Structure formats: C-alpha cells, structure tokens
C-alpha cells in the first residue's frame, strides 16, 4: 500500500480583512465578499517566507508520521514565491529538517499547482521503490498587486505530506493529470506582481481544467461523485470551487471541511493540499477523498485517497488546520500589512 503517512500544515497568525483592503482602494467590500466568497486572508510575518512555512509544516508532518528525518529520500517544495530565483528552497528545508545529505531535492513551480506536483512525484517515487519516504510541500507567500482583485485573496501558508508504504493513513487509489497551454495568469522574471487575464481565468481556465481532471479520474477509476465522502478543489476564492463542485454533482457536505479560502485566502501552492489536511483532520476510516489542484498556465492534478484506521491514531500529534486558522489570530491594518509585505519602499 502506497500513500500518505504523515501530514502537517502551517498558517501565519496574521490576518487582514477584506473590508480593510477595500477601504484603502475605495472598493465595495460587500460586493467583493459576496462575489468572491472571501472574508479575510492570512498574512506572513516579516520573518516568514516559503522556507520557514515549509519547515514548520514538514515538522508537523514528521510528528504525525513518526519517522526519522534522515530516512526521507526526496524533498520537493512547490511554490511560486521561492525566496531565491537561483538557489533552491528545498536545500534549506531539507537541511533544517535533518534530511541531508542523502536526499534528492527539487523546487517546483506551476502557479497554484506546484504543491500537488510534489505530491504526485513523491507518490510515484515511493511506489517505484526508489525511495522509502518522500516529502512533498506546497508553500507560498503570494502577492497580489495593490488594488488588484488578487490582493483580496493572495495569502500565505504551507501543507506538507510524507509518502510511504507502511503505516499509511490515506492510501493512494489513483492519479490523473489534465494539462493544456492556457495563459490565464503569469509573472515574468523580475516582475514583482503577477498579471492575469481577468474573467479568462474562470471558464476557460479554472473550470475547464478542474472539470477535465475530475471527469478523467472518474472514468479511470469507475467512480462517481456520490462515491466520495469528501472532495477538495483548488480554491482561488470561495466561489469558483463551489460553482464547479455543484456543476459536477458534488454537494456541500463533501467540501465542508476542505473549503478554507473564505477565511484563509488563497495559499496558492498550499491551497488544495491545505484543504486535504483539513479534511484528514475530520475524516473517518475507509472514506474516499478526491483532491484536484489547479495551476494557471494551466493544469490540474487529481488524486483519489482512501483513509485507513491509522488516521485517527496520529491525527492529534500535531495542530489541526482549524486550530491554526481559528486561534491566535492578529488582525492587521493596511499600513502594517503593506510594511510586512514590503509594499512600502524604504532605504534598505
């Protein structure tokens, strides 16, 4: 049996509300909240980045997996906010965890899909017998341009998964990918903020690829939407995943644990993996979970997992997602947020 043996997350304590951002730009918070189903988002502290979030999430995953870090044969960090353009995040994370030096590491980038890309590769490596354990992390401290629609959603957080063959808590049933060259969102080298195609990011981008991946994996596995106790789609806002879920025949009870964006924002590479973690926090034994990511550019990775009896045993060994999301929150005003996010130019 191949699957997840440990999972962990990290969410910064800082938050900013939609109203606070809208106030600065003269936007209508009621329309934004209603239109995008967003209320607030996480904000990284000045000393938090993709690497620190990844390390903290991975440490929580190690606590649940109960393995020795040096046994990890591969570490993949998926992010679109790697601290360096050249110099891997993966080496920082591997070293901090104690996984070095006999470890294969790579940084991945595919907009919001890089986290599940790492999971996809990690699962296949373990399945092939090439490594005993593989760690995959989706982590981001994403930035939306000031005043842009993305500023209301781009948030920070990380989710980490350790894959193995023993003591599995969620068995991998199958995977399927769906990919096309669709330029809906991009950031050029040296550009500080990404650009996007506005409404083009919806129907022909997000919806098409999520739907394509879901239909493909359902056909491959012979399953139907009602077979799943839970489903998690990538969550760029709180509206898209619900719309697409309903159009495919899924219902609210199936996404009730995994839909985090209304209170967390979009953690990009961490988004759908974070939703999976929140679902594992609540799922019972022998339940089927469908996970489908989405990355602009564009593509979706689909996974079917089945939980095991071991999930309940290890669940409480690290903080749950809702605990990180709902407690110890500190709300920021826009000025401090702008400072934290280095939106204010000053003498360095």
């Amino acid at each position, binding site marked *: 049996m191949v699957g997840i043996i440990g999972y962990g997350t990290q969410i910064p304590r800082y938050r900013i509300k939609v109203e606070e951002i809208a106030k600065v730009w003269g936007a*209508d918070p009621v*329309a934004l909240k209603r*239109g995008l189903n967003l209320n607030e988002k996480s904000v990284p502290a000045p000393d938090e980045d993709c690497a620190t979030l990844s390390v903290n999430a991975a440490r929580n995953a190690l606590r649940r997996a109960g393995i020795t870090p040096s046994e990890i044969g591969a570490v993949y960090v998926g992010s679109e906010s790697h601290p360096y353009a050249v110099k891997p995040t993966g080496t920082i994370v591997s070293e901090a965890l104690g996984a070095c030096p006999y470890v294969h590491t790579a940084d991945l980038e595919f907009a919001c899909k890089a986290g599940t890309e790492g999971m996809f590769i990690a699962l296949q490596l373990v399945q092939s017998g090439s490594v005993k354990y593989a760690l995959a992390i989706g982590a981001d401290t994403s930035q939306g341009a000031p005043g842009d629609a993305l500023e209301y959603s781009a948030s920070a957080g990380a989710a980490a998964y350790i894959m193995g063959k023993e003591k599995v808590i969620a068995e991998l049933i199958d995977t399927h990918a769906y990919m096309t060259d669709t330029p809906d969102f991009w950031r050029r080298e040296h550009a500080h903020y990404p650009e996007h*195609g*506005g*409404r*083009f990011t919806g*129907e*022909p981008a997000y919806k098409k690829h999520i739907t394509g991946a879901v239909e493909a994996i359902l056909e491959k596995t012979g399953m139907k939407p009602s077979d799943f106790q839970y489903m998690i789609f990538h969550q760029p806002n709180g509206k898209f995943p619900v719309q697409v879920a309903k159009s495919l025949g899924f219902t609210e009870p199936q996404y009730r644990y995994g839909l985090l964006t209304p209170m967390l924002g979009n953690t990009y590479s961490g988004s759908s993996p974070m939703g999976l973690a929140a679902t594992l926090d609540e799922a019972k034994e022998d339940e089927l979970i469908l996970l489908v990511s989405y990355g602009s550019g564009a593509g979706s990775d689909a996974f079917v997992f089945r939980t095991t009896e071991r999930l309940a045993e290890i669940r409480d060994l690290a903080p749950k997602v809702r605990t990180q999301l709902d407690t110890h929150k500190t709300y920021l005003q826009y000025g401090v947020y702008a400072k934290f996010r280095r939106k204010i130019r000053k003498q360095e």
Partner: protein
Amino acid sequence: MRNVAIVGIGMIKFGELWTKSLRDLCVEAAQNCFTDAGTNRVDSLTIGCMSSGLFNGQEHLASMVPDYLGLKHVPATRVESACASGGLAVRSAFIEVASGFTDFALAIGVEKMTDVSVNDATFALASAADQDFEAFHGITFPGLYAMLARAHMDRFGTTREQLAQVAVKNHANGALNPNAQFPFPVTLETVMNSTMIADPLRLLDCSPITDGAAAVLLTTVEEAKKMKKYPVVEITGIGMGTDTIALSHRRDILKLDAVDLGVQRALKMAEKTINNIDFAEVHDCFTIAEIMVLESLGVVKQGQGGPATMDGLTALNGKFPVNPSGGLKAKGHPVGASGVAQICEIVEQLRNNAGKRQIAEARTALAQNMGGSGGSCVCHVVERR
C-alpha cells in the same frame, strides 16, 4: 432608387466566446445568414467594426473577412462609427442595393472584445469619446453616461428605480432569447444593489463586454419576392444623424440631437410617424440611454421616459415594446455587431418567428443604433410587406 429587402439574417450566441476568434465570429454569423437566406450570393460586402485594431491588433477587415468567408475577390468595405458601426454597415449595404450598384449586399457587424484585459477594453471603448476634451482627462463611457443620468435625475426627477427598471425589463426579454449573453431575469433589488460603477450607474445599469457578430443579406424587393422563403421584409426608411463628439459641446446635455435627427429622417423616408411603429430595438448601452432614446423617439415627452418604463409602456406586452431581444443590456453588446443584431431581431419579429418573445401582429419596427455618447446615430424603419 430601388426598394431594398432583407432576405437573410445570421445571429450567433453572444457572450465571452473564449474559443472563437474575430474571423470565427464573422464566418459563423455569415454562414447562419446564408443558411437562413437559402443563398450565398454576395456581390458586395460591408463590415461594421469599431476597433479590431485595439481589440485584436487586426485591421484590414475588408480583406480578412471576405478571405475567410470564401468570398475573396468580392469588393468589401469596412465602416466605423463607434458603437453605431453595425447600423452604418447596414445603411451602406442598403445604399449599394438601392442605388443599383449591387444586387446582393452582405452586411456584417462584429466585435471580439475579450482578447484584451478589461483596462485595455475600456481604453479601446473610450477612443469613441473625444480624445482631447474627454478621454484625455480620464473619463470613460460609464462616467459620461453617469453625468447624463445625474442631469436627467436633477432636471426631470428620474429615479434610481426607473433606471433599474430598464435593466429588469431587458433581462426579462433576454431570458427568452437563446442568443443572449445573459438569458436570465434580474430583480429591481439586484440591479439597485449591484456594484457601483459610476454614481448613479451600477454594474447592472451597464451593457457588458461581449464577443459577437451578426449578418444580414440585402437585395432588391423584386429579387426577394422571387425567393419566396419568407414574407418580404423591407427597409423603408433610413436616417442618420451626427452631433458633437464631446458631451460638453452639446447645446443641451440632455438633448440627443443625432438621435432626434436619425429618427425623424428615417420616419420621413418611410412616410411614417412614431405612432405607426409597433416596437423598437434601441441602443441601451446604459439604462439612462434607453430612457433618453425613448424620449427622442417621441414615444413620450422629454422627462417621461423613466415613469413610462416603470408603468410598463416598453415591456414585451406593453403598448410600445422596446428591446424584445433583451437589448444591449441582456443580449450583450459586441459594439460593432449591435446595430446589425438589432435588425436581425426585428426581422425575426416581423417574420413572426421570435418564439416566446414574439410581439403579436408586429408589422413595422424601428432600430436605433448610437455611437459614443450620442455623437452619431443610425436608424432603420423595417416593414413586413
């Protein structure tokens, strides 16, 4: 001058047509038109398009469109008068047939607006305003029409609810039109609580950004009688008027002289008065525009457009139905295509072919297509013979 009939119409479903290019839209509309007409004879082609240069980086439609229609070597002309480009294309095709210069003239209106960002689309549209006296200072069309709305409210007591009722009425009609971009009803509350765009205009007071094309095939009434596929539908009146491009240069901000003249000239040519018109397709780019146009048509006195709308005068079952198609608001507003699409709707109605939105016993209709904030206007009177 020869009498001119419309023997073919070609509409496509309007919307955000991500998988269709500028040329796809033209080809699809023209093919639908040929199928409808039962002939693909085209001696001359006129294309109405406002800004394919800014929207698509593509000019020279007089070559590209016939090329992709399988009509290469056919003479073609592109005409432009901002959002009235479609109406102007029909007018130009009419003149070719009426003059005896051409026997079968195809008019296509097209705009592919979603290939660029909303900011770039707004810039392209604003190029229909006065660059020196308006757009340069940062104002775009929602702002210009918001000033008209404010002035109308101030002088005549037009209310927010009356503006909203225009959108409610047009969405109710659009819900019955399978080609509409927004084929669903909206409530007064939804319109009045939608996102503020330019006070007092809200999102649902504004027509959308749309991809679309429409085509009509014109020939002589004599030829049309031979075709026998449909009752003969004739363009009996055409009127065009122009006015200052800048709103601030008008003699009165609330007088749409181009519309007044366009309507009067079209009615005069058709030897009709507004009382002979059964219904109209008008240029409701913003809700205030429909109210003001209603007044320009002479259906109601100036200042009474709002209350008349509220009273149901312009509803599908009202005394003077306006925009049975859903109008630009619900059907969508691919700027260069809108004027041609209005004619398509009128022909459907006059053929008694408009399904659930059919206006009973409609025989004479008027199309009013406007450019910019009223800097140009093309009107057509169309009659079933």
